[in-house]
């Protein structure tokens, strides 16, 4: 349901406005609103301290950026060592933290680069090390590693010719494959001619492998050993850096969080002044708060501010509903289903909160489509496994919604006698309600009947909403519309002999009168509404269509498992298809059930346009040092 709100005015002497705003910010139960048109007080337009606001914004931004770059500090992190944000030395202290963090970042970047370099060269050197170059006795050799693309292997012949022209026969050229694209080439030349050869390679655009300085000037085998040793050391070095970063976070993160929160709170308070009003002698703060909190707020104000500052509450006028913020409050077991409203704008204040209807119909539709005890039990088991890992409230609420859907799937699976499709039938499971595979048409009728009921409930809610707002004609039109749908459904059930109700002239007359009432009360749009409602009911055929597709896929999986030879392949195929069906069974019914709520059901009564209530409060504490 939507919580009843109250208009609140806080009045007091002008000089006490900062004190009153600080109190309201601490209490955190009042959303500030701009000055209403009829108020004798005029909005405060005095000079704002822009420089101070910029300073506070910069402090908050700087602290938040540093916090985002640091790991989460432990819950029992040490006492804050940073000075207050007003102290002159605060900026220097933050600069020191920033420098420390930059130094750690630079070290980490260097280690990561070295790690990547070592891995790359290790592959090259491993390929080239087994080659045994030789230039004959008495010649001091210089070895040069080269990389060539394999698709340009003809370069080797050209290179050999050029080298022969430059140094005669006094060189050795060997190569090995590095990978699918590269050849590693080991060229050995007399040291005296190494410079000329290097120039030649440079001119021809051939990449020479230059080992990092710490591995250069040693044999390839020694370089390989050194690279291996360094590769073993690097993870420990990186771990040490992580520990240093965590230690820095433990030392400074709590105080950075406090500084950011302090600066943001003061910034909010400075900006809140613009929402307040003043007369020659008094200030006034306007706002919205849940009606039930007014007494507590007034009591707290009397205790904290003493005489002279008054908190007054007024009921909200219907003409103001458009600007009133919305607070949803439902019983604990319904609250997770408020998440399903996240995809549509909040309901407008003073209208209907559809959470309870969502909590009933969303799992119902999901179960009707999936309708398989096996898949439902698997989903419940998966939820039980991950239950302890769900930390955030949103994750826990999603798990409740998922559990309701899984239970619904199990219940409908028992009704339809389905356990991984027809496997349940082989194990002696019998349908309690109907066998969807053999009774497609009755299943379609059940789907349409449920759809008619859902749409009628939506129209009835719309009629009630219209009556509550005093729109009698609209309410009568909608009520006639709902009754017409009920009557038509009963007539249809009588025609196909589902119920003992034979069509008669008086029934047709009543339905005609209801249709006339709906059209007259609703005007030309009333007629359109009647046609659209019939289309909306037909849309519930998707419950049958998706359900039938799901059970057919499950049966196909079982059929493959039983007939494909060898049996292991058949079982593997069956398992794969069941996995696909299970995955589709999580997505399709969810989208289908949500669409039926948003398009077919909400269309009848839901009035979007609400905005969430955002009280003027201190910034929230960062729990567990989460990145911000």
């Amino acid at each position, binding site marked *: 349901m939507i919580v009843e709100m109250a208009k609140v005015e806080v009045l007091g002497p002008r000089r006490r406005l900062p004190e009153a705003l600080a109190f309201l910010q601490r209490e955190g139960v009042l959303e500030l609103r701009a000055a209403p048109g009829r108020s004798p007080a005029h909005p405060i337009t005095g000079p704002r301290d822009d420089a101070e606001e910029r300073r506070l914004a910069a402090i908050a931004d700087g602290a938040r950026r540093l916090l985002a770059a640091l790991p989460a500090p432990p819950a029992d992190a040490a006492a804050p060592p940073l000075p207050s944000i007003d102290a002159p030395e605060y900026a220097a202290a933050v600069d020191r933290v920033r420098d420390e963090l930059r130094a750690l970042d630079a070290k980490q970047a260097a280690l990561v680069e070295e790690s990547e370099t070592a891995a790359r060269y290790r592959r090259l050197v491993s390929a080239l090390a087994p080659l045994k170059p030789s230039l004959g006795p008495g010649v001091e050799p210089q070895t040069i590693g080269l990389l060539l693309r394999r698709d340009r292997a003809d370069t080797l012949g050209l290179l050999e010719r050029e080298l022969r022209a430059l140094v005669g026969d006094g060189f050795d050229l060997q190569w090995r494959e590095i990978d699918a694209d590269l050849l590693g080439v080991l060229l050995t030349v007399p040291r005296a001619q190494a410079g000329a050869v290097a120039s030649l390679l440079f001119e021809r655009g051939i990449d020479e492998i230059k080992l990092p300085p710490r591995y250069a000037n040693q044999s390839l085998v020694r370089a390989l050993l050194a690279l291996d040793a360094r590769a073993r050391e690097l993870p420990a070095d990186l771990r040490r850096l992580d520990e240093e970063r965590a230690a820095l976070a433990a030392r400074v993160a709590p105080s950075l969080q406090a500084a950011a929160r302090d600066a943001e709170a003061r910034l909010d308070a400075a900006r809140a002044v613009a929402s307040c009003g003043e007369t020659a002698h008094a200030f006034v703060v306007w706002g919205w708060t849940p009606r039930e909190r007014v007494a507590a707020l007034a009591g707290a104000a009397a205790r904290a501010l003493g005489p002279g500052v008054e908190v007054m509450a007024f009921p909200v006028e219907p003409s103001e509903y458009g600007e009133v913020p919305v607070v949803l409050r439902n019983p604990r077991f319904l609250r997770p289903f408020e998440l399903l409203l996240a*995809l*549509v*704008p909040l309901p407008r204040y003073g209208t209907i909160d559809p959470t309870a209807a969502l909590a009933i119909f969303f799992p119902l539709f999901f179960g009707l489509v999936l309708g398989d005890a096996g898949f439902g039990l698997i989903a419940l088991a998966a939820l039980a496994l991950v239950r302890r890992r769900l930390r955030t409230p949103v994750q826990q609420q999603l798990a409740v919604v998922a559990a309701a859907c899984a239970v619904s799937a199990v219940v409908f699976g028992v009704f339809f006698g389905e356990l991984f499709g027809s496997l349940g039938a082989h194990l002696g499971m019998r349908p309690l309600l109907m066998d969807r595979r053999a009774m*497609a*048409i009755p299943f*379609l009728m059940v789907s349409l009947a449920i759809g008619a009921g859902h749409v009628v409930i939506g129209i009835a809610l719309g009629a009630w909403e219209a009556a509550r707002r005093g729109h009698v004609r609209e309410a009568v039109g909608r009520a006639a519309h709902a009754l017409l749908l009920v009557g038509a459904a009963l007539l249809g059930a009588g025609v196909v002999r589902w119920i003992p109700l034979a069509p008669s002239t008086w029934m047709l007359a009543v339905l005609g009168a209801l249709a006339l009432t709906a059209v007259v009360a609703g005007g030309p749009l009333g007629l359109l509404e009647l046609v659209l409602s019939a289309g909306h009911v*037909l*849309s519930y*055929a*998707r419950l*049958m*269509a*998706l359900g*039938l*597709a799901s059970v057919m896929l499950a049966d196909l999986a079982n059929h493959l498992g039983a007939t494909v030879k060898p049996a292991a392949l058949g079982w593997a195929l069956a398992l794969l298809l069941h996995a696909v069906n299970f995955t589709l069974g999580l997505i399709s019914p969810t*989208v289908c059930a949500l*669409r039926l709520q*948003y*398009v077919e059901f909400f269309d009848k009564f839901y009035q979007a346009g609400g905005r969430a209530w955002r009280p003027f409060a201190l910034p929230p504490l960062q729990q567990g040092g989460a990145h911000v």
Partner: protein
Amino acid sequence: MSSWIIAFAAAAAVAVPAIATAWVQSRIGSAGAGAMSEKPELRSAVLVMLAIPETMVILGFVVAVLILLGGGTK
């Protein structure tokens, strides 16, 4: 009625709306993605608009089932 005509009719009842739905959803999807990049608050409206044309293929499937179950009996 020949069984191949019944099978063809059922296939056409699904295939034609499926092609139409795919075409419409591709247009709505690309336009919706563009709109959401400018105004993320439109996501619910885009989601609803994207889901609307799928009714065609769903009803096509239902008609196909009716053809397969009722075809050839008269």
